[in-house]
């Protein structure tokens, strides 16, 4: 089986995610790829069985069977929730967000059941994708590159990491310690101290400086996690900002947001 360069890039990028699973929106084979191109590539890979995907219903309207059902005078053979969904779309196309069903997490399941029974017509969108077993086997044993292609070393790195995983682990959930370390926590600590000295921030370093220095190689989340580990070990303290007027919006947003209280903005080495 031959695959195109863009498909290869797609797959290799998927390898960078934990469990080789990611929301479709986060896949971008190259900076130039448009989202329609990406979606097309995705369905091609799906068709070949190299990846699997989950779909979610983004809008729905009532089907004739559904209309008929609503006209029935006898006791209806649907649950109360399903009836609510049917009534909601009786006159117009609606989105799941407009549907008042609790718990919200059950909405998709209810709608799928109604679609399956032909009572509504639904429009779906790919939600999450993951590498199928077939895809894993293909990348591990079958694929042999030919011709020329412009693949970044970063993508090559993901491939090598994948290949170096013992097969028994089945490729899922690469262990944290098996990822070649970008910086150890101790090194992050050193970077904090060096930056603080350099900028004269008196051991009260705004996080945006650290992000500028360490992202990349770190992703935002990876750096947050490293900081949390250092906090847990009492190596650093994270502190919030009261008066944000002296900083730009971007700088303020570089803090670690908290859903309660102000975002963590400064780091202090203990």
């Amino acid at each position, binding site marked *: 089986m031959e695959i195109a360069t863009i498909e290869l890039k797609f797959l290799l990028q998927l390898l960078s995610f934990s469990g080789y699973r990611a929301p479709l929106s986060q896949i971008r084979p190259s900076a130039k790829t448009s989202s329609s191109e990406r979606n097309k590539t995705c369905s091609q890979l799906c068709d070949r069985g190299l990846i699997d995907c989950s779909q979610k219903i983004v809008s729905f309207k009532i089907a004739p069977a559904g209309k008929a059902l609503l006209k029935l005078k006898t006791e209806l053979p649907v649950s109360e929730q399903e009836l609510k969904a049917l009534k909601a779309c009786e006159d117009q196309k609606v989105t799941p967000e407009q549907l008042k069903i609790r718990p919200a997490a059950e909405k998709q399941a209810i709608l799928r059941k109604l679609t399956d029974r032909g009572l509504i017509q639904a429009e779906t969108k790919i939600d999450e994708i993951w590498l199928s077993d077939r895809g894993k086997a293909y990348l591990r044993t079958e694929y042999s590159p030919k011709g020329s292609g412009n693949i970044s070393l970063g993508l090559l790195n993901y491939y090598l990491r994948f290949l170096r995983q013992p097969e028994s682990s089945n490729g899922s959930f690469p262990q944290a310690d098996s990822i070649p370390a970008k910086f150890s926590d101790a090194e992050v600590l050193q970077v904090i101290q060096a930056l603080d000295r350099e900028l004269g921030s008196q051991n009260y370093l705004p996080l945006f400086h650290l992000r500028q220095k360490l992202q990349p190689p770190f992703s935002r989340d990876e750096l947050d996690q490293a900081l949390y580990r250092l906090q847990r070990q009492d190596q650093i*303290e*994270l502190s*919030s900002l*009261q008066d944000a007027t002296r900083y730009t919006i971007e700088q303020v947003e570089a803090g670690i947001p908290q859903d*309660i*209280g102000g975002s963590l903005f400064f780091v202090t080495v203990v």
Partner: protein
Amino acid sequence: MTAIDQIIRQAINPFDPATFKPGNFWHEEQDPALDVESIHQEVIREVEAVLEQVARDHRTRTVMMFGDSGAGKTHVLGRLKRILNPKAFFVYIDPFPESEAIWRHVLRYTVDSLVQKPEGEAESQLLRWLKSLSAFKQGGIVSWVLSDRQRFVRSLKASYPSGIYNANEFFGVLYDLIDPDRYPLACEWLRGDNLDDESLKLLNVKHSIETEDAAQKVLANFGRIAAETQPIVLCFDQLDNIARTSDGAIDLQALFNVNSSIHNQLLKNFLVIISIITSTWRQNADRVQLADQVRIDTSVPLKPISLDQAEAVWVSRLRPLHRQADPRPDSPTFPLTRQVLEQKYPGGKTYPRNALELGRRIIQSYKVGPSKAEQPEDAIAAFKLVWLKEFNRVQERIIRIRQLSAPELTQMLKETFAALQVGEICPRFLPSPTYASHSFSYQPNNQGRVGISWNEDPSLTTLFHIMSACRRAVELNLCEKLFLIRAEGIGKPGNRGYELRDQIFAENTPHQHLKPSLHSVHYLATYHSLVNAAYAGEIVVAGKTLDIQALEFFIRDSHILQNCTLLKNLGVLSSKEIVEVEGEEAIASQPDDSEPEFQPDNEPIQDFLLDLLKTHQLLGRQVMVQTTVGQFTEISEDQVNELIQQLSEDNQLQVLGDNPNPQEQLVYLPDQPA
């Protein structure tokens, strides 16, 4: 007995947000049962150690206590007061509105705190202090009470032969403190009120404490005498809303000048505690001279708490509910779990207020079910509850307008003007160096500038000076319309100030003299207190910490200020805000101490019931009734029940449960139509 889930559903959320807003420890009751001792234990120990040093060698010291918003600074101050009050006199100093009057501000709050009674004591700190002086103990209390003023002053002067400023008057006024009739007037003089001639005569003093210098020296007198008894702890808190310098930064230098003077001028026996948000200090420290910074003897950080401590905070709040439950829940944090903490705080640390808020949210969703909890909370309703709670406190605390200084009243009014977006506001309006800070002006849209001056000093001399300044302002055409706000007397025909006032504010002029009611001032003071809390990051409404912009939005959107007659008379409420309120009028009416007679007006109570329900979504009927009775003391349980019935008939709320026993009934909000 009842199962825990039923108890939780029926009870007020034990993490009720209104408890997150701390403030002046003399006016907020702390429940020691809710304290987790291990939290900030080292801070308490350190401050206690410094206090012991002061008690030993009488040398004044300064502690700076810093921590993030929500770390518990104000709460720790309250705890320190509770624990250490037997060893010291505690003074809470509100944010100062004017740097030029900071000493008078400190003196005013010092005396106001000293007249408070510590828990479990029959007498104020001030009387306790007075009676513990050895000069009084000689020969027993009876002898000095009966002896005349002269003897009393002589005896004290003999004990303190030097170092007391204006000793005759100061000791004389201390003597008046013992006389219950003169006690209030003596306190007024000590706190620096500008008294009228009659009162001064009664106290046998020539002048009020009018200048910064005099205020500083009277404060020194207190310190001097405190050497013999207990140290005085001055707590400066909520510094994010103090006076600002011309470039808009908070004027910390003014505070540090005071601190350094206390040290330099050998004011003895003070422990100064400066409580400040870490980032505020870090960002402003470079504006404070190094020579003043070194006056900080000890810096104590308020560190984040561990998740174990966060759990302990939860346990303390849930304990009263668990006690009622049968069977007892397995975990003392039920229905909260450690996992949630681990998940929310991967770094293993948080702040007490965050832990409380997390607890509140989880309990809330437990009460109403996760799906309903996803709906956005009714923030305006929650805000109105926070307001009402604060308003009640302010009503208890401020019993006369004159308790507040002119710069404070002016500042409070300015803050509401800013919130109401009346137009560009300029501080310091009157062309007088002394009284400029008792005034400001603003520029309404498409209209001429409006000047406002507020002063409640009883002294008629002060009134005359202010009237002269008002006249100059009018002559110089500084404004199109001038308001004088003053509830205090204006003297008699023939007094110079009286005559001037009559001319300037005559009926055929655009200018007006308004007499504010205490009720109006309560509105301003409540808002001011919330502004202080907002600057300190200490006010939480529906899960969000409000900054000043958010607070201004809420105050506009809730239309709470519409009942403030003073604002109405000043014409700054938009027409839809205005609701007719009786009882306060312009100068035509008599002195307006009289609040409107209380008519059990059901509307605020119904509002309260609905706000309570919007905030909690589901409540036991009994709890709802009791909470309401606690809030509105004039109303009986039966009346509340009747109101609930009415609201239920209007379909504004629903009562669940067929059982006629109200204890088993639940009240909840009807589902909004989709």
